[in-house]
């Protein structure tokens, strides 16, 4: 007896039961996701802790010209404004020194090897994979001076993990358990002296999302956000611009409850009784916003030594959605999407002091910003201004370090004075397809 595979498979689906997908639900969820995608992307990329193989589509719409700012009626931000064209070209040997680079020629075809961050003592957290039928990933600490890899013992957790603290004594990688967007937090902690992984979970901690990665506070505890309220789109969805993209500027933001956990004691879970949007630590302060992923009216600063709190009005534009948040020294950095105008997007990276004084706003079409290595890293995705830029909050120096960005979210946490960026390798086979390869660059910044 001969059985034909093609024929059998056709027979299997000849008479499907009723149960078509609900197109109304598709439209409703699709409209909602367009908004979440635009708002969520920067937060994830700003966290820069994972590789997202972006299959099929570009990760950021961007503009034809990242330096083009719509002339009407784009409002001018308060204080000094920088355009990408104001940046001078950075030079190796003058502005930075390249410590290491790594190229994957085709990440669209298969996973490769990645720099996932830098430890406080200057070693690269080097990731190989996931590879193979079981999608196994292995990690090493790579010395950029010698190129020598010290492979770590196998990590049990083989799902998506994000490095959040790469210290001299321990490495902390976090993951979410569960099948939904929110899940139970686990931390994989590598004791560098013992050369041993341990898994931390906290039964008293509510489920959370990874919209913003957990942060290790100055007290060594891990601070996390537990979803509290979520902004909703207006009835009928968001208005769309000429390009067909939803314009969700001026959105109602989301809030979270701040919790913290001990990295040594699984029973030590604490509700900090503080509702926040985004948050960050300086050496001596906790800084947070009221909301995130939407408009935000106030920023709060708590002196961790005295508990004294102050708050300030960041004077962001009325339509500005807060997408990323960080602090560098006494400067607060806000990444924002502020609406679509006749000739492009109004994207901003706003820098202000913890007293609320404006320092500068980098404004353009199709850019985003984040804090990394004690610097403000700006990425532009479109046109002739595409590439990575660096702004030094202390000196005001603004330079361009590359003229292109890869199609992948690469990188991870680095200590002050280090910087990572990535550049594209190869050509996309189709405008809708990602550029296949990427090179990661690790540099030591010269201040």
């Amino acid at each position: 007896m001969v059985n034909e595979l093609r024929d059998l498979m056709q027979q299997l689906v000849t008479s499907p039961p009723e149960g078509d997908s609900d197109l109304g639900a598709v439209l409703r969820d699709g409209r909602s996701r367009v908004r979440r995608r635009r708002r969520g992307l920067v937060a994830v990329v700003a966290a820069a802790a994972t590789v997202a193989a972006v299959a099929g589509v570009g990760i950021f719409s961007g503009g034809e010209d990242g330096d083009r700012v719509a002339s009407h009626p784009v409002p001018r931000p308060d204080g000094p404004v920088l355009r990408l064209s104001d940046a001078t070209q950075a030079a190796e040997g003058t502005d930075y020194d390249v410590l290491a680079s790594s190229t994957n020629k085709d990440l669209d075809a298969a996973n490769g090897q990645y720099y996932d961050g830098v430890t406080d003592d200057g070693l690269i957290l080097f990731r190989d994979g996931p590879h193979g039928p079981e999608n196994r990933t292995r990690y090493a600490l790579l010395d950029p001076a010698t190129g020598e890899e010290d492979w770590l013992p196998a990590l049990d957790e083989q799902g998506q993990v994000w490095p959040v603290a790469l210290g001299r004594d321990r490495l902390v990688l976090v993951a979410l358990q569960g099948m939904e967007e929110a899940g139970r937090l686990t931390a994989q902690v590598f004791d560098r002296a013992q050369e041993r992984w341990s898994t931390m979970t906290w039964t008293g901690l509510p489920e959370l999302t990874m919209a913003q990665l957990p942060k290790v506070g100055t007290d060594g505890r891990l601070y996390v956000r537990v979803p509290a309220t979520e902004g909703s789109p207006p009835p009928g969805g968001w208005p769309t611009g000429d390009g067909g993209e939803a314009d969700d500027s001026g959105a109602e933001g989301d809030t979270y409850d701040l919790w913290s956990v001990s990295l040594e004691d699984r029973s030590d879970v604490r509700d900090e009784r503080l509702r926040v949007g985004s948050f960050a630590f300086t050496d001596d302060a906790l800084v947070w916003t009221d909301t995130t992923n939407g408009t935000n009216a106030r920023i709060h600063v708590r002196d961790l030594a005295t508990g004294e709190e102050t708050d300030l009005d960041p004077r962001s534009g009325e339509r500005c959605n807060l997408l990323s948040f960080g602090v560098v020294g006494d400067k607060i950095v806000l990444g924002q999407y502020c609406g679509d105008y006749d000739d492009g997007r109004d994207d901003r990276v706003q820098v202000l002091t913890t007293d609320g004084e404006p320092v500068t706003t980098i404004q353009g079409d199709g850019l985003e910003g984040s804090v990394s290595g004690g610097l403000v890293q700006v990425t532009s995705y479109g046109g002739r201004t595409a590439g990575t830029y660096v702004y030094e909050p202390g000196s005001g120096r603004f330079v361009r370090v590359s003229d292109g960005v890869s199609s992948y979210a690469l990188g991870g946490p680095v200590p002050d004075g280090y910087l990572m960026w990535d550049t594209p390798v190869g050509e996309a086979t189709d405008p809708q397809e990602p550029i296949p390869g990427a090179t990661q660059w690790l540099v030591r910044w010269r201040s």
Partner: protein
Amino acid sequence: MRERDEADFVAFAQGARERLRRTAFLLCGDWDRASDHVQEGLIRVYVAWPRLERAGREYAYARKAVVSAVLDHARRRSSTEVAVEPDPERPAAGDFVDTLTARAALMDALAGLPPRQRACVVLRYFEDLSVADTAAALGCSQGTVKSQTARALDRLRSIFEDSPLGELTLGATSW
């Protein structure tokens, strides 16, 4: 999304969803879950729609989105569930043929394949995609498709040959 684009998307989704559901069913083995995967895939298509070229690539993109949704689900499930090993106590050959038709036997055999091997088989021999197009749909290399397909076919053939159902051939292409 503009109204006209949304109308185009709805027309596309209405025309494509049943075919996508059949593919999803072969990938996951359950009609209800197949509907869920198609729904998730179409949402992803909606998000990408303004940027999709309108030159016949919508369906390929939608198929890729559905396959991705199925594999995402399988990967998440595999991290929380213990994989089912082949049952050494499964019915003897005589019982097997008595209780299962060839179609059911194939469905059973597909269920025993790793998700990506199963996807290779479905895309190559149900969707009749080339190796290159299968690789594009799965986001992997052509070599991976070839090796995964070969392993899957070896497994399927051995299951059939070890039963009274007899030989399993690929069958004629539809073109």
